[in-house]
């Protein structure tokens, strides 16, 4: 069955995927139905698993009629080579040329050359330091030995670094990329701090490359469409943004495009009251595209400087909801040419690798221009942003760092990178 489906996929007959699926579901129901009551009575526990295993095997046998050729794993292995990121040139940024002075590769933050002999120039990042304690246990002596052996980057250090990177939510692709770079430049490092600085610099480069300040209001009104998954903080962010614009002497209008979630419209209205600005809304359950359309027209007629369109949270794998978003986007463009001028995805800093999928899928549906990261005042580091920047080139415009209305700040790559290693 699966082979069948895969073939249809290859032939582009996606449409007919549905037929086998309908059958398969029916089959499963038919097969398992009579057993259900029995199963309930007997409380089979362990048996259920076995049954599942059996069912799986049965299906597999059915699906792939014992064909022994080692099928290609349909997914790229998350192994050492991760072609997730497009690297334009094979190794364009061989970061540290084999030159005697590694210092040049670490601008700004780089310690001075005497660092290798000085016992302990106190550096800001506390955690990595304690993490690196192990490798430095012998203090001066071991560092001296390390210097001679030119082998600071041992397995312990690699493990410590990996832990820091992974626990910052950087994900397998980004961490592997960084660790490969570290390994390639092993001989350059004289201390664990060198490695840390090197990593910081590499990460900083990625973020600086995609860096863009929060956009200026070029149109009247400049239309911002806010998108993202449920609970990311879109509505709150709009409230804060409105405050920011008013502080700049601009006139914002808010559009209550989340007509789905209970009381989402009320929530935006409260923000409207707090900021003393107009909120365009319709009743719950209204068509969000029409709310957006009306909002653009009324923002134009009111002579507003900026229109902030809220949308319902949607998980990026829900096709219908994503189509709804595409429609909202299209309708806004119909109401005003070139609009929305900015489409901002709001991402919760607590999210792990799914944030990358979010950014990807939303970008495919509508042209996302930038990111606002929320809840960065918690303990989460938001390391997934590096992967997003690297893979999608999306800039982070602003970060939310608190619940107060003014807690929305410009994104500072340096600050962000420092925090990753804190």
């Amino acid at each position, binding site marked *: 069955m699966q082979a069948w489906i895969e073939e249809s996929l290859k032939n582009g007959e996606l449409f007919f995927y549905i037929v086998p699926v309908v059958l398969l579901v029916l089959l499963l129901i038919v097969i398992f139905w009579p057993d259900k009551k029995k199963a309930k009575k007997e409380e089979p526990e362990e048996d259920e698993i076995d049954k*599942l295993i059996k069912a799986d095997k049965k299906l597999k046998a059915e699906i792939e009629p014992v064909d022994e050729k*080692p099928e290609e*794993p349909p997914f790229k292995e998350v192994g050492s080579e991760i072609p997730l990121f497009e690297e334009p040139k094979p190794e364009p940024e061989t970061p540290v040329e084999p030159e005697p002075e590694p210092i040049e590769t670490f601008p700004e933050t780089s310690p001075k050359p005497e660092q290798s002999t000085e016992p302990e120039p106190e550096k800001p990042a506390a955690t990595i330091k304690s993490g690196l304690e192990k490798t430095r246990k012998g203090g001066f002596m071991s560092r001296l030995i390390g210097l001679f052996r030119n082998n600071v980057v041992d397995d312990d250090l690699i493990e410590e670094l990996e832990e820091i990177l992974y626990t910052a939510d950087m*994900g397998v692709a980004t961490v592997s990329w960084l660790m490969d770079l570290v390994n390639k430049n092993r001989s350059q490092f004289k201390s664990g701090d060198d490695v840390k600085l090197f990593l910081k610099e590499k990460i900083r480069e990625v973020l600086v490359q995609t860096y863009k300040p929060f956009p200026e209001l070029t149109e009247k009104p400049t239309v911002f469409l806010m998108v993202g998954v449920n609970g990311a903080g879109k509505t709150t962010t709009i409230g804060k943004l409105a405050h920011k614009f008013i502080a700049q002497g601009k006139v914002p209008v808010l559009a209550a495009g989340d007509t789905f979630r209970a009381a989402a419209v009320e929530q935006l209205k409260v923000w409207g009251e707090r900021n003393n600005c107009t909120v365009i809304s319709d009743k719950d359950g209204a068509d969000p595209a029409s709310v957006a359309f009306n909002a653009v027209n009324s923002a134009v007629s009111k002579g507003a400087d900026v229109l902030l369109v809220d949308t319902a949270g949607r998980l990026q794998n829900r096709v*219908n909801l994503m189509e709804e978003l595409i429609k909202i986007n299209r309708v806004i463009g119909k109401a005003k040419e070139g609009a929305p001028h900015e489409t901002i995805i709001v991402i919760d800093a607590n999210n792990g690798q799914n944030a990358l999928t979010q950014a990807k899928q939303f970008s495919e549906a509508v042209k996302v221009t930038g990111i606002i990261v929320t809840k960065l005042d918690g303990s*989460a580091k938001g390391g997934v942003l590096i992967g997003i920047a690297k893979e999608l080139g999306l800039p982070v415009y602003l970060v939310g760092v608190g619940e107060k209305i003014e807690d929305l700040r410009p994104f500072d790559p340096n600050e962000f990178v420092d925090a990753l290693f804190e």
Partner: protein
Amino acid sequence: MFDQLTDKLEATFKKLRGVGKLTEDNIKDGIRELKLSLLEADVNFKVVKELVEKVKERALGTEVAKSINPGQMFIKIFHEELVAMLGEGDHSLNLNVRPPAIILMAGLQGSGKTTTAGKLAFLLKNKMKKRVLLVPADVYRPAAIDQLKTLAAKIDVDVYPSEVGMDPVDIAVKSVEYGKNNVADVIIIDTAGRLQVDEEMMDEIENIKKAVEPSEILFVADAMTGQEAVNVAAEFHKRLSITGVVLTKMDGDARGGAALSINAATGAPLKFVGMGEKIDQFEVFHPERIAGRIVGLGDVLSLVEKATEKIDAEEAERLRKKMGKNEFDLEDFLAQMKMLKNMGPMENMLEMIPGMGKAMKQMEGKVNFEKELSKIEAMIFSMTKEERRRPEILNASRRRRIANGSGTKVQDINQFMKQYLEMKKMMKSINKLGLGGLMKKFKGLGNLVK
């Protein structure tokens, strides 16, 4: 969730056919794949290390039964570890106290506490016939109180009349009185989202707990949460001694590794999973099922449970008989599709089917199932009764007519018919085995695993 894990492991272990024993050497690559998959699934780094170590320890020296390959053996061990880990503790809701039983919801902002409170109330009311009181105690987020009140009205559940200016601890205390006076069986207190590092807010919820002594303290967590799930959950647990976990937004494509992280950090059992935006898309947590889903065995039991709930038993029986006689025509196909539609979004169901996870990944974002279903529906609707019963009479001119009538192309009809015939063929081969034979086959296969 961890859809590709099984594929990856199988691929890794393919090289090892015929190995009799799992050794440090021959499972090295498998261990690495497992580790990376878990990390990519957002399981916390430390938890990954521990889990992988456990699996490795158990795997080493294991004799591989002749009938299965080392990869399957390894997966089986991993699966058992997961079940052991996720299965610990009592997963049911503890309401065995003198009524009203109090449930306190806690979690970060945007994790889905309010929605979950509504869903839980709906479940308690409908399935357990409880009289529920919902208590909005989030006085901070604009319109959070309205949100819960709206939900309560929708499902016709009593709600405590909180107001924005009130003190959350006060609300909680008074709501208990209110609940007693109104003979509520269960009181669900929805609280504001808070960061675990926010001392003041954590004090507040601790005070609520002290004041009302809930029998259940549910930590609500977003399935998309990353590495910090461990620290967040640990701090909430330290402050509140949570009694259970609800994992929300599980209908998304997040791998949900947070489930393992939270479990490792708190030991608190997962009790419910949120599976969608609708009020009834809320399921009791079954460790074996989720573990099965993680290692790629599918979640057939959930599917069947759903089916029995939403599908008319007689209709199912009728279809089964028809299938048995291989008389399954397009009319039945139509009925079957209707049944499926009632069961919720296609995507959710597909993920429960073994081996489908992989295919689903490829489909992601490419296919709109609802739309395609209606397309096929349109085709069948454009056929005459006779054509539906005996699709083999569809000749070129009939097909053209149907294509015109349904707004599709003749090629579409051709393909649909081709697939329909394949389907019948398959059914025939299944019928030959008979249901008994089918089950026997399962058993035979099952023995191989043991």
